[in-house]
């Protein structure tokens, strides 16, 4: 039945190619047995959960799109995005400071990274939330406000997550910057480009290829990390799920509701991440449109963006700097 027994009818090019090897593959008995055991255990677990009389699956269904849950979901999404933005901006700044020949800038950035990476995220959240204990009022001289009105649970959460992320992002960005061949910035400087432009036009765009994968990981970590803000009573997804279960006592069901949403979010984030990675893995030959878009998102409203160079007919107005 094999092809080799039949007359060759294919294209001429394959005429003198030998028949593919037909051999009985090595059987991995150990792997097969392990596979069977794992599947059996998994099935038993799923059966136990699905048929457990103590889990009321209808409660899960009823609460999945409950408006309280959805409001928590929204808070979780916005906390994630805003904290990541704070983290990225801060991270770029800190990374540049860290690589600067200026000792003071360098040490300040190193100290920042040391403190924020060396203390637990949860402790940082609690510190921001309790800021009013040390600084009852914030401001200078006559212009000050009650700390508790400014540092709401949401703001404390944002500060706690964003400032912490900045420290991690700084190391990621620094790694990305160091991955770009020194000849690139040298060529840029030799053309008369200033240090800052060299960084933002030449080095950082190329560092993105190295920065994006770990940044995607951080985004996913951040999605889950936001659940920590529950302890400072920020109304995130977990917190909303818990306020419902406090009333109806379906603790496990509502944790499942929250878990389903976390899974949805992390899955979406993972898909976005792998898309971005693929774009940037093409790396040096990346389509300018992608790059331009990412860059534009990084620093909105700059006139001389790469996009401006790419699109010959684009006027500055196209890039949103008119106003």
């Amino acid at each position, binding site marked *: 039945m094999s092809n080799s027994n039949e007359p060759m009818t294919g294209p001429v090019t394959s005429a003198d190619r030998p028949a593919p090897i037909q051999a009985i593959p090595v059987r991995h008995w150990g792997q097969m047995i392990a596979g069977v055991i794992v599947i059996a255990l998994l099935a038993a677990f799923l059966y136990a959960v699905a048929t457990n009389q103590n889990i009321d699956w209808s409660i899960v269904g009823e609460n999945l799109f409950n408006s309280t849950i959805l409001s928590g979901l929204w808070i979780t999404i916005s906390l994630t995005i805003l904290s990541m933005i704070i983290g990225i901006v801060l991270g770029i700044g800190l990374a540049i400071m860290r690589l600067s020949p200026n000792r003071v800038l360098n040490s300040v950035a190193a100290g920042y990274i040391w403190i924020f990476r060396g203390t637990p995220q949860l402790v940082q959240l609690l510190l921001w939330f309790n800021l009013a204990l040390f600084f009852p009022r914030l401001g200078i001289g006559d212009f000050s406000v009650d700390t508790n009105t400014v540092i709401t649970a949401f703001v404390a959460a944002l500060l706690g997550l964003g400032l912490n992320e900045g420290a991690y992002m700084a190391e990621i960005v620094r790694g990305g910057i160091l991955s770009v061949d020194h000849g690139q910035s040298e060529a840029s400087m030799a*053309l008369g480009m200033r240090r800052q432009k060299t960084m933002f*036009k030449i080095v950082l765009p190329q560092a993105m290829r190295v920065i994006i994968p770990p940044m995607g990981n951080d985004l996913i970590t951040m999605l889950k990390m936001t659940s920590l803000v529950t302890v400072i009573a920020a109304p995130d997804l977990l917190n909303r799920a818990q306020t419902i279960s406090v009333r109806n006592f379906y603790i496990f069901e509502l944790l499942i509701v929250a878990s389903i949403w976390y899974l949805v979010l992390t899955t979406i984030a993972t898909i976005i991440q792998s898309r971005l990675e693929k774009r940037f893995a093409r790396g040096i030959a990346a389509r300018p449109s992608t790059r331009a878009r990412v860059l534009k998102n990084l620093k909105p409203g700059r006139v001389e963006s790469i996009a401006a*160079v790419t699109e010959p007919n684009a006027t500055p107005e196209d890039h949103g700097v008119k106003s």
Partner: protein
Amino acid sequence: MTTPMVKAEDVHKSFGQVEVLKGINLEVRAREVFCLLGPSGSGKSTFLRCINHLERVDAGRLSVDGQLVGYKERAGKLYELNENEIADQRQDIGMVFQRFNLFAHMTALQNVMMAPIQVRNEPKKDVRERALQLLERVGLADQSHKYPSQLSGGQQQRVAIARALAMKPKLMLFDEPTSALDPELVGEVLDVMRNLAESGMTMIVVTHEIGFAREVGDSLVFMDAGVVVEQGTPREVLSNPQHARTQAFLSKVL
């Protein structure tokens, strides 16, 4: 007497304990092709990089077109230039590197257009036109949309030359522009350089291409261990080297 394009007087440069340039004296006249020859480690690249202040000179005076590099002199005192002033000085000096160093995330055309737009704020339309002309001049009009990774070494180096020319420099520095190229690609780059020399550009060329030096060069300097050993016209130095070190070096490369 006209001002020389580059004038080096007793230029010294050390990296840590190691003195790489031990008092370089030379003059490069405007519109001449000045070739620098010497064994590896003799300080040729370092000297070239001092000219556009990619390296700082430790002692001596180095000036381009009558202007001190990296410093300004007022009332007999030297003041270091700040970063922006240094960037401004570099605008007029084009540099071509051994490893091309094209911006990897930009097309050939974008590479050439970059500096005039970013540094001089020239209108994009004019720059684009000029960039296309330059790419045509180096024989790459049809490759303008390609990324460096899609170009051969010779093509990349020609784009790099066009990129430097886009800033309308008064001086071009070439640091072994063909050393990283496959032998069959060397010619196309040398052709572009020859063409550039004919147009009257002042060029300082570090090269091991003796044929190019002999044919295109107006002056030739042989450097060894951080000093100028011998200088003259290429014909004099290459055919009738006076110094033993020059003779030894030439016997190896010729």
